């Protein structure tokens, strides 16, 4: 019965337009006309003012206008963003046809904002627009790549090189400890969630705008505080049909400089031999006999096989290809855009692959002067061949570093040598090459997104727009592990196993928007009121099987034992919102918005929250006293303040549930139930209060633009999973505690010039963000994440979120005397790490008491720089980005520099402590023990500062004069992506972030990043 309600719900306001359409108004002494651009297409929304009066109107959807004048004739002033202002004489009763000339200045652009658009010169919030022209040659398997290095305050990290993988995006720092910190993505007005997923073709995108401050994002209420990414897809341009065909092909490789160097077979045997001998030397204080070393290590020089497992797992020259066709056209009434694309990226790891088919149809049409409609439909099918698991020591990438190098990839008969190591005191791993090729792990994700709207203009200044958005996502996953694949320390044969999963999601939303636009005299006002409702439901079905008759029939029907389950979850929200933008005399700008939103995720007692925001701007350059400063085309000061929310918590986090825990009585099943979590009926969204101050400047005929920004965002009611004493029955509990501040500066500048036939542009941005935990109002004032041997992150007042925490390593103990004169470390022997006694009690306790902050995972600043130019038919561009002044905890080295001798180790291990005479390089411990080596400590900290030359592209454009050729233009280009990395960081990817959230800055190895060289061609017909 509840469902009926919710299904009808989004349509609650569609009746409203009827109410308005019956209202009418009269007019008298008039001039009428139509406004067109240079191509003859109608221009909507141009301002028409009678010179010398305050009377003004706007052109309608077909470019038509009617204005009343005093007397027989008058002069009309016609202005529109993006066009040069014109004055036109007109006489009463006449009909004018007026052609406006386009103005190239960026200042006159319209920018996309939440639920609407705004003239850039009137923007009072912090909004960044990605320069898609600069990234047109980049091989894009996921559209989040397009944001890289584009906007200050927007951190884009490629934490994994998985084909088709989404990039990690944060706007203005990590604003949350326990709820998500990814921005909200809104595609063509439809909030699709905090991820864009894989089902989206970057070539369909016309515009990406990032909303950063509160006045821009508060209109998205409880989902606004992590920033909002607005994506607008392409639509038909006025004019003749344009067919665009493009294709590109590339190859991917890992440059050898970015590979980690491990010991080879002989070196590893030597390492093992040394371990055995050093232990006897130390513990038994005698010189060992060679026969005490196990035979396999006794004569390292006789080791014949040496396999570089990491290299063996790589797919050299992995191809990347992209094909895209689009057709756009527009006449006066109907604009349409059709596209089809296919992207295929084979992974740099063997047998991994991503491909995506996409089709799109966007069509907008005007039914008459008052009614227009539009429809956008996009369908995608993404297919992935996944590696079973890549992140961390125990999975493919980590294991390929630490697996025994003395085993071969294949047996002499060509079959795989299945079980690597697993004898002579070395960990056993599955042959990673065999795991990659023989484990079947596939996912298919099909998605359809559709938006439809109808817009009705009435009473000259009013518009009512009703839109309905829907998303269907079908995700199926299947994995089959054959019986001959070993486990970790588990030689084959084992039970074959299969895991199948189907996840189906449907999400719909409906928006009802009423806008009022008017210009009268020096006043321009834009009012929006709206209502939105959104509902998402996901159903899951999963099944697993083991005990297969053979490995040839990887289907559940062949499994002797099966498990299965089904589930369902969802959320809903609804909100009422409004906004007023007001401009006075083109100088004083004001904006205010308000949203009241309710969410199913929040506690009974706190279902609704309010999100207000206000802002103001002053265009100093338009003041009379500035009229003499001709080089300055725009100077604007602006400020905003508002409240936004973050609802990224589990769907039912406020409620407590029973879960099954059955038992057996008298050999029969009896149903048992236990409590699965604690409830919190007061659970609500995080609230961020954000202040933003900015200055926008344009000079030298808009050749130079510059923006500087200061912001201060304080997030209250932070959602946190608070660790609970286990005596409560549970180990954590979700609550609103804690307060975090993110503040910083952002600078962006762009310079564009043309010297004779050479065009040049350069654009750069710098972001400086500082985050600080202000309070954790829980029973304990600090939050520790991670573990004793895997690296800790601590969040506590006064420190940044997730500061890296551990023992401060002072060096290695040189000898027993060194141990004796140092604070007591129970069980320490020469060669283990000497730690700092933080609590000055002369004992290093084997827990967190002597741990201190040992690293900061947040950069002091990040930057992006792009530059380009064109000369005759040639063009080139370069994109650089980087981060400076931060630390990474390289937790993988607890394995790749594990001194137990159970793993292969880094080449650097040769510098380890052997004895007092050979103390090594002072940061690598002895092989004689494990204690006081692998605990979270500063030995594993490295600076992550780096600079990427992310992309270099050159292109040649050919515009044939001869009409013999079928095409209008052809562009050929070559592009290199992930080109050069400059860093002292010893890992392969300083953007790695294996755990994320409040566990930032840990490197446990992930899917490696490839360098890609691409060649492409674009035809325009």
């Amino acid at each position: 019965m509840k469902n009926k309600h919710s299904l009808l719900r989004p349509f609650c306001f569609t009746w409203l337009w009827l109410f308005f359409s019956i209202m009418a108004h009269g007019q008298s002494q008039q001039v009428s006309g139509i406004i067109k651009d240079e191509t003859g297409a109608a221009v909507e929304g141009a301002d028409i003012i009678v010179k010398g009066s305050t009377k003004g109107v706007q052109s309608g959807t077909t470019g038509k206008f009617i204005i009343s004048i005093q007397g027989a004739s008058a002069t009309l002033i016609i202005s529109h963003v993006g066009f040069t202002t014109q004055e036109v004489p007109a006489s009463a009763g006449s009909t004018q046809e007026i052609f406006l000339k386009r103005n190239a200045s960026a200042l006159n652009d319209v920018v996309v904002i939440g639920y609407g658009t705004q003239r850039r010169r009137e923007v009072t919030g912090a909004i960044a627009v990605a320069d898609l022209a600069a990234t047109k040659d980049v091989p894009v398997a996921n559209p989040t790549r397009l944001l890289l290095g584009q906007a200050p305050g927007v951190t884009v990290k490629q934490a994994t090189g998985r084909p088709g993988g989404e990039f990690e995006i944060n706007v203005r720092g990590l604003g949350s400890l326990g709820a998500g910190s990814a921005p909200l993505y809104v595609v063509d007005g439809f909030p699709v969630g905090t991820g864009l997923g894989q089902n989206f073709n970057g070539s369909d995108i016309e515009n990406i705008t990032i909303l950063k401050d509160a006045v821009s994002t508060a209109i998205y209420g409880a989902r606004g505080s992590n920033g909002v990414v607005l994506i607008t897809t392409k639509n038909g341009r006025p004019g003749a049909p344009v067919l665009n065909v493009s294709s590109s092909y590339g190859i991917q490789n890992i440059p050898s400089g970015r590979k980690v160097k491990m010991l080879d077979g002989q070196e590893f045997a030597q390492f093992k031999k040394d371990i055995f001998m050093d232990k006897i030397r130390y513990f038994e204080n005698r010189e060992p006999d060679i026969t005490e070393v196990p035979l396999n290590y006794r004569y390292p020089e006789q080791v014949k096989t040496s396999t570089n497992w990491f290299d063996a797992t790589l797919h050299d020259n992995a191809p990347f290809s992209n094909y895209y066709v689009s057709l756009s056209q527009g006449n006066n009434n109907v604009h349409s855009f059709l596209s089809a694309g296919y992207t295929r990226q084979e992974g740099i790891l063997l047998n991994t692959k991503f491909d995506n088919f996409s089709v799109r149809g966007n069509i907008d049409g005007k039914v008459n002067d008052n009614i227009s409609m539009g429809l956008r439909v996009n369908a995608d099918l993404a297919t992935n061949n996944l590696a079973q698991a890549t992140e961390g020591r125990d999975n493919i990438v980590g294991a390929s570093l630490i697996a025994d190098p003395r085993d071969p990839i294949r047996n002499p008969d060509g079959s795989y040598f299945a079980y690597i190591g697993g004898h002579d005191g070395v960990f056993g791993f599955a042959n990673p090459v065999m795991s990659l090729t023989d484990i079947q792990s596939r996912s298919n994700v099909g998605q359809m997104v559709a938006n439809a709207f109808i817009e009705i203009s009435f009473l000259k200044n009013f518009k009512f727009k009703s839109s309905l958005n829907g998303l269907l996502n079908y995700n199926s996953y299947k994995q089959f592990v054959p019986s001959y694949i070993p486990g970790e320390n588990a030689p084959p044969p084992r039970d074959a196993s299969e895991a199948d999963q189907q996840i189906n999601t449907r999400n719909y939303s409906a928006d009802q928007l009423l806008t009022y636009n008017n210009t009268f005299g020096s006043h321009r006002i834009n009012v929006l009121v709206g209502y939105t409702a959104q509902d998402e439901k996901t159903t899951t079905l999963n099944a697993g099987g083991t005990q297969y008759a053979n490995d040839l029939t990887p289907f559940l029907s062949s499994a002797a034992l099966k498990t299965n389950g089904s589930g369902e979850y969802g959320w809903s929200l609804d909100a009422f919102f409004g906004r007023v933008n007001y401009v006075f005399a083109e100088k004083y700008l004001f904006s205010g918005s308000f949203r009241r939103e309710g969410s199913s995720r929040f506690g009974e007692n706190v279902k609704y929250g309010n999100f207000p925001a206000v802002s103001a701007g002053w265009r100093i350059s338009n003041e009379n006293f500035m009229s003499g400063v001709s080089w300055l085309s725009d100077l604007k000061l602006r400020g905003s303040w508002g409240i936004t929310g973050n609802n990224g918590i589990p769907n039912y986090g406020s409620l407590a549930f029973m879960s099954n825990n059955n038992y057996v009585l008298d050999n029969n099943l009896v149903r048992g139930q236990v409590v699965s979590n604690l409830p919190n009926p007061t659970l609500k969204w995080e609230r961020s209060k954000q202040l933003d101050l900015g200055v926008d400047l344009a000079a030298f005929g808009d050749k130079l633009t510059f923006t500087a920004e200061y912001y201060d965002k304080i997030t209250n009611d932070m959602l946190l999973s608070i660790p609970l004493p286990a005596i409560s029955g549970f180990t954590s509990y979700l609550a609103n505690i804690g307060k975090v501040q993110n503040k910083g500066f952002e600078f962006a500048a762009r310079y564009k010039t043309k010297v004779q036939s050479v065009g040049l542009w350069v654009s750069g941005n710098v972001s400086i963000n500082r985050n600080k935990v202000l309070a954790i109002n829980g029973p304990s004032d600090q939050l520790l994440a991670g573990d004793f041997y895997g690296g800790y992150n601590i969040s506590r007042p006064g420190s940044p979120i997730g500061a890296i925490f551990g023992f401060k390593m002072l060096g290695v103990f040189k000898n027993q005397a060194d141990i004796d004169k140092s604070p007591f470390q129970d069980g320490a022997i020469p060669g283990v790490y000497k730690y700092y006694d933080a609590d000055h009690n002369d004992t290093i306790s084997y827990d967190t008491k002597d741990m201190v902050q040992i690293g900061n995972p947040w950069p002091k600043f990040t930057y992006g720089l792009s530059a380009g130019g064109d000369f005759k038919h040639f063009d080139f561009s370069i994109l650089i980005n980087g981060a400076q002044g931060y630390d990474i905890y390289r937790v993988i080295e607890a394995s790749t520099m594990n001194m137990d001798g159970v793993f292969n180790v880094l080449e650097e291990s040769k510098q380890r402590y052997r004895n007092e005479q050979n103390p090594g390089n002072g940061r690598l411990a002895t092989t004689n023990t494990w204690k006081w080596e692998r605990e979270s400590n500063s030995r594993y900290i490295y600076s992550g500062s780096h600079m990427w030359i992310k992309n270099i592209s050159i292109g040649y454009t050919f515009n044939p004069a001869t009409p013999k050729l079928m095409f209008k233009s052809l562009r050929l280009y070559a592009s290199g992506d992930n080109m050069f990395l400059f860093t002292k960081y010893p890992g392969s990817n300083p953007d790695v972030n294996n755990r994320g959230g409040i566990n930032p800055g840990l490197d446990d190895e992930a899917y490696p990043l490839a360098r890609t060289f691409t060649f492409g061609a674009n035809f325009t017909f």
Partner: protein
Amino acid sequence: MRIIIIRLLAITFALSAVSCAKNYLNKTDPTKVSTDLFYKDPTQLEQAVNGVYGTLQGIANDQWITNELPSDNTTIDFNPGDRGQSDRIEAFEFYTVNANSTNLNSSYINYYNSIYNANNTLAKMQGATGLSDSVKAVNEGQLKFIRAYLYFELTQYYGDVILITQPLVQPSDAWTYQREKQENVYTQIESDLKDAVNDLPVKYEAGHIGRATKGAALSLLGKVYLTEKKYTDAVTTLNQVLPLGYDLNTDYADAFNPQKKNGIESIFEIQYDAAIDGEWSSFIYTFAPRLSAGAVTGWSQSNPGGWNIPTNDIINAYEAGDTRKDASVGLNFKSPVTGLTVPYIKKYAHTHAVYGRTDDNWPVLRYSDVLLMLAEAINEQGAPTTEAYTYLNKVRERAGLSDLSGLSQAVFRDTLAHERRVELAFENWRWFDLKRTMTPADLTTFINNYAAKEKANPTVTRQGVPYSNTDYVFSQYEALFPIPANEIIVNPKLTQTPGY
């Protein structure tokens, strides 16, 4: 005028939004029952009680780590290729346990989660309708028995422990609890068990066999009194078990035979069933030698843990002719790497139809334990009486051993300790028995003697890997475990066990 229209519109919108929104934002997990709707009727309460029993399975699966491994009964099948365990399970064998031991942490969490569910069900039961007093009493009796059992284990591990007998009113109350003196913990345990003795039936009807009985409550209470050295109370309590109809099986091995679950000797077992999804046990997969593949489990794809391996010390402790040796210890497996015998616990090795799913129950209290406790309590009151010999010899006779007589109190004490060791071997009582029957100083000497022997001549060869200096060095404070580090991180006011 237009402004007024807009205002009116805005108000209309707002009002409609509110009226439209009814129920729209109330969503609950459709796959689970909310706790608010549960604990309402007898069926739900029975399910809640069953749920608490269910949590015991998780506890029994890992209990050998804390109850058997530190003792002289078991050691490990040393894996030179996996040193990652050094600071985990191996620490319990080598006496290098520290507060960061993950096994200790998960054990602590499991115990208190189980206690929470018992407390919560006890509290919610008061508000349920349609529950007869007798049904309510039986439910309460079972929950209190389980709670007493859990606290008894906890206080053996940690000494002073946090005592919590109510569900928390609000989560932040969890920070107000401190470790309670052990004597107060015992007071609570005794009180729970006395209630359980009164509330619980001697037997259950079909379909309920396996629930805690009056006999179970009496036996556990006897064990508690014995541990507290309240010998008179122990004798009185344990004597009440005798007339309840228990007896020893003729064949010692029957007590562990899945075909003969909950037999005449059984007082309390944790129930498993190989045929029911999610309810199977898998002890032998943990206990079989590492490289034994299918030699012990019967399934060649097995990759057993090699944990809880019987020591040479206990293997040699069986008297000649003791039939329990063959029922308890397997000596027929030789490592394919070293060619040497790796012994294993045979009590839980039974054929099973499906790989990984065994049918073995975990024995908690057996009648022979009661007989031996009774003999011990009597002996500690002064001297071994005829009665005491009767109980001891009854257990010995069943094992094929001759009767004993004419021993001094001290010799009888040692004899009983030995008898308990072999009778109850690998049933998670040895470590507690050692701690109960010895002073801390004696225990330290005893363990270090055992440790020195095991270190010099390990049951399973270490294949050339030398010991660390700290291995097999037992200090007196290690008779109690440290409170898991996480708990002290979360609640810094919590005190650590002295010595750690």
